């Protein structure tokens, strides 16, 4: 569910800064050997000290920290109605956001006042959405939008889709209100950027389950809490990407503006912002995608829309209905993604060339606006344009088709899948997990720090040491190691798949076109929809959790690797071909080595995505940290432990992010 911890372009930026180039070359010879040595030492210590100082904690046991958090939570709840901070601060925020959400809902999804239908019916929404897509993008995405929105109606999910859309619009609006100014500030000030980064990491990797319950305490149950939960998760990408965009505006341009006597305000408004507009729009895109990932989670605190449909269907294991609603989320994601992408491309074009099209664009836009307004009027006035006609038979068909596919897969594949599961679990996962959980904590900690130093340098070694210390402090060290084992196995599998499909996609445009929509779908489909068939195939096991993580994490890795392969200069490949290399040799000797930094980045993103599925894994048998978080959300006695487990996930994320990023910087240096 995490979207982008750092932008793909990041590594190149710092390559000049890192002074390790010379030292790195000396060390590079020995690096695999050093890693090998560390692992051998670890194995020896494991054999000697197995089972000692493992800091394990039984499922129902708590530490003092956990109890303290529980007490804190209780006292906030008890004093809510008398505390001035609540009365005058949180309640006001809640009121504003609640009104915003209700307003948009009355506009497009919920009955408004005396009207049995919203102010704008389906025809008006389709027309308006199509028009806006065309105005900010192009006519192709406008058609896609109109078709996509009509599809919601055909699925029989018009109102639910509009509720989701309303919530997404509000959340994205509020997120941008904060995120763009903060992003600009972080782009201009290094110090603010450094302060901001840990907060952003926190917002993106802290499992939402941990703060859902407190959110409803602060902002009550309802639209406001759902929106705020979404904002917390969805704002960081825009902040990061805006900061990145501001930083990347060429220095000479800014200097030119300065030398012409522009004030800092002028250079911000006239130079920096316009020049980074395109990238900022990509940030908005990522924020929208992240907001959509929250649809089912926000439903846990009664946010209306497609989320409750998915959750309720799964209570009776109705995969078909859940899939139908999940598909609506996917369609919405694809529409919004393509429109914002088209918008950012348009920014680019509009800046580069004022072509002849620009001349009749204005009257065209005017005409389009008139048409859209007529449609809105119609849908406001007439029943046929307000209520979507038909009873969603398409949705019923989709549901029953999904049901038969799942049934077929469950019936015919289960023999193969069990063998595969047992092979991976016994051959890879169990030994590795034993090594991590049964070694004394200080041995594992030392190994992690040593590996960080070797792979990423001293600075990431220090970060790792701090993270290890804090992990011990959370009191869930043993669970963290169990989760770590599954996470690493999942990441290895993600990378294997990423390389196979990434190379294929990078080498063939055809393959890319065919695979990419599936990857998009895999990233936004609510996990539980496909988890039910996986549960049937693999049972409630850690392996099922790993598969779920792969489905979510592999697409990112594939996309990044495909881009990396495509970025290898054509001439290099041609030279290798003319030197008589066969395809296999070109891939292994030329294309993969030359996209090394893409591979490291893919590992980084793959790991972060896998980590963001830890909680979902806890729902299907992964146990450990994921289960702790889920249990904390369900039982008030375990709340503190759940929060600590959430913190442990954040710490694991930060640790690996820093190590892999430092390694990526080296790879590209």
């Amino acid at each position, binding site marked *: 569910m995490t979207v982008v911890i750092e932008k793909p372009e990041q590594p190149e930026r710092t390559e000049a800064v890192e002074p390790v180039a010379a030292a790195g070359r000396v060390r590079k010879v020995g690096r695999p050997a050093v890693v090998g040595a560390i692992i051998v030492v670890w194995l020896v210590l494991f054999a000697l000290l197995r089972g000692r100082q493992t800091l394990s904690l039984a499922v129902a046991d708590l530490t003092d920290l956990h109890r303290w958090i529980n007490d804190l939570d209780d006292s906030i709840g008890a004093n809510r109605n008398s505390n001035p901070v609540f009365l005058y601060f949180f309640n006001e925020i809640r009121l504003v956001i609640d009104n915003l959400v209700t307003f948009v809902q009355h506009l497009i999804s919920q009955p408004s006042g005396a009207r*049995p239908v919203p102010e704008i019916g389906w025809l008006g929404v389709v027309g308006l959405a199509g028009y806006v897509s065309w105005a900010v993008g192009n006519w192709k995405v406008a058609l896609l939008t109109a078709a996509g929105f009509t599809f919601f109606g055909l699925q029989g999910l018009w109102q639910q889709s509009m509720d989701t859309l309303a919530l997404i619009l509000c959340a994205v609006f509020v997120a941008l209100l904060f995120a763009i100014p903060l992003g600009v500030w972080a782009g201009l000030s290094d110090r603010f950027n450094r302060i901001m980064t840990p907060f952003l990491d926190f917002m993106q990797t802290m499992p939402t389950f941990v703060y859902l319950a407190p959110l409803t305490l602060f902002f009550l149950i309802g639209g406001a809490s759902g929106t705020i939960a979404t904002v917390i998760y969805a704002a960081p990408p825009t902040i990061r990407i805006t900061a990145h965009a501001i930083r990347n505006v060429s220095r000479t341009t800014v200097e030119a503006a300065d030398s012409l006597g522009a004030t800092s305000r002028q250079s911000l408004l006239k130079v920096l912002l316009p020049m980074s507009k395109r990238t900022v729009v990509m940030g908005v895109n990522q924020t929208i995608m992240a907001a959509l990932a929250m649809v089912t989670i926000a439903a*846990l605190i009664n946010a209306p829309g497609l989320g409750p449909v998915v959750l309720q269907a799964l209570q009776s294991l*109705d995969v078909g209905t859940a899939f139908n609603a999940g598909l609506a989320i996917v369609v919405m994601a694809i529409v919004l993604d393509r429109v914002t992408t088209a918008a950012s491309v348009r920014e680019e074009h509009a800046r580069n060339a004022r072509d002849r099209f620009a001349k009749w664009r204005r*009257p065209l836009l005017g005409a389009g606006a008139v048409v859209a307004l007529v449609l809105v009027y119609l849908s406001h006035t007439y*029943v046929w344009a307000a209520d979507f006609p038909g009873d969603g038979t398409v949705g019923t068909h989709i549901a029953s088709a999904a049901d038969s596919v799942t049934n077929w897969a469950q019936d015919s594949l289960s023999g193969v899948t069990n063998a595969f599961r047992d092979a991976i679990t016994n051959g890879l996962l169990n030994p590795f997990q034993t090594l991590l959980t049964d070694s004394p904590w200080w041995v594992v900690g030392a190994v992690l720090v040593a590996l960080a130093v070797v792979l990423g340098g001293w600075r990431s070694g220090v970060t790792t040491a701090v993270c290890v210390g804090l992990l011990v402090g959370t009191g869930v060290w043993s669970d963290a190691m169990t989760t770590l084992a599954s996470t690493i196995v999942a990441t290895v599998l993600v990378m294997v798949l990423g390389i196979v499909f990434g190379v294929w996609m990078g080498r063939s445009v055809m393959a890319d076109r065919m695979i990419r929509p599936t990857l998009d779908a895999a990233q936004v489909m609510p996990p539980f929809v496909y988890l039910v068939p996986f*549960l049937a195939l693999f049972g409630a*096991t850690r392996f099922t959790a790993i598969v779920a993580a792969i489905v979510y994490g592999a697409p990112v890795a594939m996309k990044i690797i495909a881009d990396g392969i495509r970025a290898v200069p054509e001439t290099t490949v041609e030279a290798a071909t003319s030197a008589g290399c066969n395809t296999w040799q070109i891939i292994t000797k030329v294309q993969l080595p030359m996209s090394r930094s893409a591979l490291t980045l893919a590992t980084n993103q793959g790991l972060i995505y896998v980590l963001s599925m830890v909680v979902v894994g806890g*729902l299907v048998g992964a146990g450990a940290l994921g289960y702790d978080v889920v249990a904390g959300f*369900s039982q008030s006695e375990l709340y503190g432990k759940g929060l600590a487990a959430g913190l442990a996930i954040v710490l694991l994320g930060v640790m690996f992010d820093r190590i892999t990023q430092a390694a990526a910087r080296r790879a590209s240096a």
Partner: protein
Amino acid sequence: MARHWRAGAAGLAVLGLTLTACGGAKVGDTSSGSGGGSGSSGKCGTFNLAVNPWVGYEADAAVVAYVAQHNLGCTVDKKNLKEQIAWQGFGTGEVDAVLENWGHADLVKKYIDQQKTAVDAGQTGNKGIIGWYVPPWLAKAHPDILDWKNLNKYAAKFKTSESGGKGQLLDGDPSYVTNDAALVKNLKLDFKVVYAGSETALIQAFRTAEKNKQWVIGYFYEPQWFLSEVPLKKVTLPAYKTGCDADAAKVACDYPVYNLNKIVSAKFAKSGSPAYNLVKNFNWTNDDQNEVAKYIAQDKLSDDAAAKKWVDANKDKVDAWLK
């Protein structure tokens, strides 16, 4: 060129206006039938009903909401929430009633005894049974498995990739009351509790086990819609005696039968709302609940349709709630 498009736009606008002239039914023309019902609407106002995430509860909520809406003229606002958050909502005024409470001693202590924001509103009539269950094929093939004393004999058969060499005892959603880890230890069973983490995972495990004749034993409970699809068999544990579960670490007896009850917010109880009386009087049997749950889960009726079907067939019961 530009003039061309302007003309086109004007044409479209005209077309649009003509369409509106012969448009069909207008919004608001036929909306007289909404609301409805025989009761005194207005007096009840809004009734905030929490819906906890399991089908049995959904059935309770469907029927109560239907009756409140149609017989009392309430505006029912159903809120999909987990237990902990629903109870928290009593204090903030966001939730009026929880219809099916399974014990939850921690929440009772916090919200009824300490914060005094919630009060007990009597039993639902449903009996909650918790225990260890096996799929029917297994109970048929090895009838002696239904006695806990024989479980160790079969422990090896229950081994999985997750259970570390012991037999696997599968637990579900962490929201539910469980003493399983202590039970395994105190009954000296060669089993390990594996946490599936959700009801969905648990049900799917039993479903697959029955279909493929696999060995599964796990935590389950009645009333539950799934039992009408696969009638799981309960394993007898040492009988429950009052107080035998007082010390959570030393439990060595079966779970008690839970008399499921209703919880309402203190404010709602004093409000004099007819919906409160309905909640207080609401009472039905496990069979009733299973029937409505079956309509929802297996016949795939909407909540409202399922409730209507049951209410129409059980007028006398509903009338008793409305007294």
